[in-house]
C-alpha cells in the first residue's frame, strides 16, 4: 500500500515534518516483524510504502493495522500538530493460497 500526505491544494507534501508509523494487533497466526511504533520520516517525493509479506511456511495470519500520519513542528519532544489515522485495516496473509488481501479502513483526522 502507498500513503501520501497532501495539502488543501492537493499537493503532495514532502518533508515539512511529516512522519508515519503503524500499530499492529494480531487476530490470528504469527506476529510479523513490524515497523510498529517506529518513526518513518518523509520519504523522497512524499510517498510512503507499506510492505506486507508472508513466508511460505506461515500459518494463516490475520492482523489489524492502523496507520498514523502526523505533522510535527520543528521542536524536539513535541506532539504532532496534526494527526491522521487510516484503519483499522484488515490484512489477511494466506501463504497456502499465495495471497495477501488488504481491506482498508476509514481515514479520519484524530486532531
Amino acid at each position, binding site marked *: 500500500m502507498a500513503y501520501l500526505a497532501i495539502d488543501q491544494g492537493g499537493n503532495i507534501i514532502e518533508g515539512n515534518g511529516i512522519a508515519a508509523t503503524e500499530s499492529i494487533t494480531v487476530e490470528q497466526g504469527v506476529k510479523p516483524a513490524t515497523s510498529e511504533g517506529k518513526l518513518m520520516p518523509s520519504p523522497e517525493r512524499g510517498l510512503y510504502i507499506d510492505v506486507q509479506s508472508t513466508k511460505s511456511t506461515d500459518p494463516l495470519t490475520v*492482523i489489524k493495522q492502523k496507520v498514523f500520519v502526523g505533522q510535527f513542528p520543528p521542536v524536539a519532544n513535541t506532539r504532532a500538530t496534526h494527526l491522521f489515522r487510516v484503519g483499522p485495516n484488515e490484512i489477511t496473509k494466506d501463504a497456502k493460497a499465495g495471497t495477501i488481501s488488504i481491506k482498508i479502513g476509514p481515514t479520519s483526522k484524530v486532531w
Partner: protein
Amino acid sequence: MSRFLLCLAGLLVSSYVFAQTPATVPKQGDLAGMKLENVRIKKQTVGLMLSELSLQYGVPIGLEVAPSEDQLGNYAFNFKKGTLSELLTQFVAEHNQYAWRINDGVVNVFPKEGSRDFLLQNLLETRIGAVQVKEKTNCSTLAASLMTSPELKRVLDASGVTYRERSFSGFFIPQLGRHFTLNISDGTLQTILNRVISESPTAKFWVLTRNEDHTLFLDFGAKHEDAPSGIRFSEEDLARP
C-alpha cells in the same frame, strides 16, 4: 503549513531511501542510572515492549524470551520517573521469571536460572568462529546468517529445531546502518549480538524466541536511519479511539 489531508493509493512497490544518523550508547555506569520519565508502553509481546523502550530511549537491550512466556498477551510499562535500573527492577518484579544484567553496555534480560530454555541458553553461549557484517546489511540478513552458521546449525540440528524468519509488515525494512560494518573473529552468539546493538547506529534491540512448532526466531529492533530525534508518536496518540 497548517493542515494537510491524507490520501492513499493502492500501489504495491518496494523501494526505499536510507541515510545515516549517528547514535550514542550510554556507558555502562551511566546506563543503569539513566533518567527516564513518563514511560508508557503497551504491546502484545514482551519483546515488542522492550524493543519500544530500547528504540525510544536509545538503550541497547537483548532479550532471551522465557519458555513460559505467552506468545500474545498484554504487556505494559507505566513508569512515572526514575532510573533505568529502577524501571528494570520494576519489570522483573512484575515478571518474576526474568532477571536483568548489564553486559558491555547492553541490558540483557533473560529467564532466571532454573527456568531458562536450555536450547536458547546453549545457542547464546555457542562460540562462532568469524562474523563479518558488510555495509548496507539488513537485520534479517544478519539474523539468518548467524542462525545458519555451522556452529549454530549444529546445535539446532541436534535439538530438531529450525530457524524461521518472520513475515513483515511496515514502512521500512530494518537495517543495521548504511555504513555499519563489523568483524568479529571469535565470540559467543550473545557477545556478537550485544556488539551489534551497541555499535549499530540503528539496531538497538535483539530477541531470541522459541516457538511451539519447533522453530525459533532471532529478531532485531531498529529505527529508521533518517528518523529525526526528539519526535515520536505518543502511546496516547496511537491509542485514541
